[in-house]
């Protein structure tokens, strides 16, 4: 983590809050969103994420409101991610063929997804030929059991892993803990989240919702560091000292996969910390967990994605490490677990299958004005932000029935998506699904039905407008601005005009034509 002093003064939306300096510490300008630090005597508590009550619908806006009620967290979160968006834009302008690359990436993914059986079998043949042991998991439980089986066969007590959204999706860490296997995350952000017993809030920068003070508190509690020292270099060093010995003596190493290359049977993992290489190369056994949608046909295709991935994600030309794993090391073992967990069902959904093109760059989160103001934990799901709004309901349409409404449908997510997923259109399509499958609150549905009836009857509509204008004009302020009127909580209502356009036209342009 770095909280470099990178945002330009002119771009600060809240200069009155930011009296900042860099506060020292290494600046990873290319790898992290910069934001100014606030000077504050009292430490602001980190807001927690969405309240989860079993299968009941997650209330994103409730959690978002709590996030915004913590002004330092809200401000820095917004600025860090906007900074990533600006860096992305600069990288994009350095590539004249950017839009063609996006089209190409989209076409390659659509090609592979519509021939998924073929490419997965090709990958399997080539991986086996390379000496990789291949496993197929139909769901999260099977994935976890397969990995546990490998761990048990090697009688391992500790497993180190790099960040993988798929393992989050599978509840892997919790499962292994109940089986008595110690898991050590090697990605710094993910390690922070693990130590704080929190899910990642973002697919690329998992602890981006935390301030350095929050990290100092987590490390003080779990690693025994100085609670009052929030210098990033100090914190990173303490974590490294505490975790390195555990990494060096781990029995099993695990990584995710950014890409599976069918023609070579190889796995490609992109990181900035080199931590996937630690996970893959230090222990004698390397397990790769990969969703089946990660397969691409050829090594040549990879170039298209590598050019887009880090530029879209962090606004850097490339990740520090792009590691190719094609087979086990001499004397070692390499396993690939190919996981479906709902993906083949999603592939059959006419309006939503293209969400499988996602390469998990997080650009849609960085640009999303709602995500930036809400924090990723407000979505209460493995995948936050715009992409999460269209993926999570495929896992549980009831629990995630309200998520598609946490969007203004502004479309910026679709425009930044390097594989051209029509994210905002899919968000709108999910709203329709929720409405038609009775996953919408009754009150909201009833309001919409009433509006639809009224707007279809011009005469009644005119009476209603006159009554509403009259109410605005004549009711006392306390009757208009109350808790039932959510518009008026933080906004003024427009002043009612002397007459509607309709009335003006009638008066000035004569009778009905």
């Amino acid at each position, binding site marked *: 983590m770095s909280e470099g002093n990178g945002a330009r003064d002119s*771009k600060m*939306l*809240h*200069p009155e809050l930011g009296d900042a300096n860099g506060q020292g510490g290494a600046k990873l300008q290319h790898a992290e969103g910069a934001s100014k630090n606030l000077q504050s005597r009292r430490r602001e508590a980190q807001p927690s994420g969405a309240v989860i009550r079993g299968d009941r619908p997650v209330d994103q*806006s409730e959690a*978002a*409101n709590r996030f*915004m009620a913590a002004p330092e967290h809200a401000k820095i979160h*917004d600025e860090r991610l906007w900074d990533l968006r600006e860096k992305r*834009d600069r990288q*994009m*302008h350095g*590539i*004249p063929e*950017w839009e063609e690359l996006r089209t190409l990436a989209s076409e390659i993914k659509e090609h592979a997804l519509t021939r998924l059986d073929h490419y997965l079998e090709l990958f399997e043949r080539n991986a086996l030929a390379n000496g990789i042991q291949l496993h197929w998991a139909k769901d999260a439980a099977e994935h976890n059991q397969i990995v546990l089986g490998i761990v048990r066969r090697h009688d391992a007590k500790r497993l180190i892993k790099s960040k993988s959204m798929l393992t989050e999706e599978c509840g892997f860490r919790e499962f292994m803990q109940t089986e008595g296997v110690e898991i050590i995350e090697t990605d710094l952000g993910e390690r922070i989240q693990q130590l704080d017993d929190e899910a990642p809030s973002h697919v690329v920068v998992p602890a981006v919702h935390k301030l350095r003070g929050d990290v100092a508190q987590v490390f003080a509690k779990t690693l025994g560091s100085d609670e009052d020292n929030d210098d990033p270099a100090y914190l990173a060093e303490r974590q490294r000292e505490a975790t390195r010995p555990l990494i060096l003596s781990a029995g099993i190493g695990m990584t995710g996969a950014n890409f599976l290359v069918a023609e070579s049977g190889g796995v490609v993992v992109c990181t900035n910390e080199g931590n996937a290489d630690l996970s893959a190369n230090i222990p004698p056994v390397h397990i790769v967990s990969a969703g089946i949608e990660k397969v691409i046909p050829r090594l040549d295709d990879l170039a298209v994605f590598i050019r887009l991935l880090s530029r879209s994600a962090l606004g850097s030309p490339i990740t520090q490490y792009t590691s190719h794993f094609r087979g086990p090391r001499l004397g070692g073992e390499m396993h690939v677990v190919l996981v479906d967990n709902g993906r083949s069902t999603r592939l059959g959904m006419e309006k939503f299958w293209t969400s499988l093109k996602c390469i998990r760059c997080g650009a849609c989160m960085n640009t999303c*004005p*709602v995500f930036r*103001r809400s924090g990723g934990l407000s979505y209460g799901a493995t995948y936050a932000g715009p992409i999460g709004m269209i993926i999570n309901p495929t896992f549980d349409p009831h629990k995630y029935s309200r998520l*598609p*409404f*946490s*969007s*203004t*449908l*502004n*479309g*910026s997510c679709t*425009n930044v998506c390097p594989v051209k997923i029509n994210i905002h259109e899919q968000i*709108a399509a999910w*709203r*329709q699904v929720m*409405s*038609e499958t009775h996953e*919408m609150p009754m009150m*909201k549905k009833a309001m*919409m*039905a009433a*509006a*639809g*009836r009224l*707007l*279809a009857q*011009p005469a009644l*509509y005119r009476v209603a*407008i006159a009554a509403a204008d009259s109410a605005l004009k004549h009711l006392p302020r306390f009757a208009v601005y109350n808790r039932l009127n*959510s*518009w008026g909580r*933080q*906004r*003024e209502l*427009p002043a009612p*005009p002397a*007459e*509607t*356009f*309709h009335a*003006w*036209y*009638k008066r000035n342009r004569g009778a*009905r034509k």
Partner: protein
Amino acid sequence: MRIGLFIPCYVDAFEPQVGIATLELLERLGLTVEYPFDQTCCGQPMTNTGCHAEAAATEALFVKNFSRYDYVVCPSGSCAHQVRFHLDAIPQTEAVTAVRAKTFELVEFLHDVLNIDAFPWAAFPHKVSLHNNCNALRGLKIASMSELNTPAFSKPRRLLEKVRGLEFVEIARPDECCGFGGTFSVFEEGVSARMGQDKVRDHVQAGAEYVTSSDSSCMIHQQGCAARAKIPLKFIHIAQILNGAMA
């Protein structure tokens, strides 16, 4: 050429001067403009909320009102976008597809259909921040978008450049949504208002006296935020400036 004037429900109820300016501007350009009395709305509030079936009767009424015109012109990109891209809760008869194809947002209509390149009657000697509604921007593509690596252009800006004395100011996050979002503004009030406050702040820091847009919905929202914070920022629809409003 017969023009059907479509006045969005919120313009009718809250911003009649925007409707009047649109009408006068089109008439000034020599067009025959009619306002069908039985119009109400394009159906967007329901569609936007996922309630397509509930929008069907409103959509049918829209088609009935506007079928007889050569063009339908509307001072809102959001509503024009709804008609052109989402008016599909009813059977797509020839009449329906015809109305959808001939419905234009005012800026598009002036720029693409009429090719107007002068507004000799218009002067607006003020510092102005231009706000594009997201549906107008990313749906109707009235301007190039900051997320895409495509040649820069802006139809509203090209029109406003013909107005004497008007000076543009540039905000830090030009294409950032202001948080109105239709029913989002009431169902997700907290984030909506925060986005509006941030947008207003951005305009103020850029030195804007006025904000202009081809959509009143975004401006009603932003004006509400500015008014609550007692920020003396002024809002004016692009139709009013082009029609020669002297501020």
